[in-house]
């Protein structure tokens, strides 16, 4: 451990010295797309007209080891769409799927943007549905979740940075096993998440969104089949990649 600290200090020193001597050579980007406003899911510059943006992608999530009893990454496939309406209103929708677990969310919001800065406030309602009737399981689950959220975006040069925070409330959960049904018709605060997104052009005018999200939750819907009973909050990190269509 002491050697690692020494190595990291040496690395820091080398890179600091290098940074001071890197020659500056400013060159204009001559791509024809560089001068256009960059497509974005988060920095919406369409305050007064109707405009539609969508993306597809996937996330790699790391469910808590207590729930799945091993270190795995699970892929969640995702489609996200946003419609800007007049008077700064927006409607945002999302479909995320792990095949046996699925979430559809939809919600209104309000969007403010000026120059390179944007602010979005929204409230998404999500319906979770999961089913497995093979391999010794005879179970389905349904749940309603609420995601009040806020995000702030800033464009610097040809990159858009977004910070997003949301609270997560579970309004209702129903699980069926065989012929038995258990419902929890109770609002409970399930935690919150913070995310960081970076949008930039990848190729021509196609924008790649790289995101990192950390959810701090008790109930994590993609792993409902573990029937976790733990009354603890867990960090669930997630890396996401999306392409704006």
């Amino acid at each position: 451990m002491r050697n690692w600290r020494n190595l990291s200090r040496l690395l820091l020193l080398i890179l600091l010295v290098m940074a001071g001597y890197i020659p500056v050579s400013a060159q204009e980007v001559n791509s024809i797309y560089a001068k256009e406003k960059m497509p974005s899911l988060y920095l919406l510059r369409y305050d007064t007209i109707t405009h539609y943006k969508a993306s597809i992608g996937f996330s790699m999530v790391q469910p808590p080891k207590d729930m799945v009893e091993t270190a795995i990454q699970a892929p969640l496939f995702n489609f996200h769409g946003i419609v800007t309406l007049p008077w700064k209103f927006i409607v945002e929708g999302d479909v995320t799927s792990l095949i046996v677990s699925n979430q559809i969310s939809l919600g209104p919001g309000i969007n403010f943007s000026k120059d390179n800065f944007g602010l979005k406030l929204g409230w998404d309602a999500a319906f979770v549905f999961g089913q497995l009737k093979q391999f010794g399981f005879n179970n389905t689950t349904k749940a309603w979740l609420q995601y009040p959220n806020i995000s702030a975006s800033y464009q610097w040069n040809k990159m858009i940075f977004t910070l997003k925070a949301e609270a997560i409330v579970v309004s209702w959960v129903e699980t069926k096993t065989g012929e038995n049904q258990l419902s929890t018709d109770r609002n409970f605060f399930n935690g919150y998440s913070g995310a960081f997104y970076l949008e930039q052009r990848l190729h021509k005018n196609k924008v790649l969104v790289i995101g990192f999200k950390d959810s701090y939750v008790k109930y994590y819907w993609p792993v409902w089949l573990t029937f976790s009973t733990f009354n603890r909050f867990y960090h669930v990190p997630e890396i996401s990649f999306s392409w704006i269509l």
Partner: protein
Amino acid sequence: MGRKNIAFVLIFLLTALAAFPQQQDSALAKPLRFSVTVGACVTHYIDNLDYGNQNLGKNFAGFSFRLLWEPEYRLSLGAETGSYTMFKVKSPPGSAITGDITRRVTPVFLLVRMHIVDYIYFSTGFGLAFLTNTSNHADQKIVTNTTSLSNYLFSASYIYPLSTHWQLGVEVKVFDFGAYNDWMNSMQVFGTFRF
């Protein structure tokens, strides 16, 4: 603690670099390109074994291979693999059995690389890792294989262009292999051919 140290080093590095005079964007418009990179490295295993880590060897040589698609902007996408020896432990003197245990890893990562300023790049990757444990005891060799499903790679590299097609560079990497919570860093030199 090791992980937190890495995180704070990275954040401090970022802040320190940002303190220098702002540099204008120097991303060059360039035609569509691919690149192949081969590197040789020295690895260092960050020892977090709780048990049986007497006589632990942590430094070994390794190599990597990377294929990247480099479109016209800052980002590049690709894949990386390699072969590394993580550690070798010998049984302590006086133990009931004598021998040694070696762990090797072959990661396969999906990679995203970002051009920061002129010659500096940062990369992050995730993917699979194939761990091989070789145990030599009582004249018997046991080889076991584990597939780790949760793995990450972070790296910073300095790449100097020798010509239009050839580049030379150095890179510092940090690996996290989730199956056994193994952390390893490496320093490598590499050559890149762009086409």
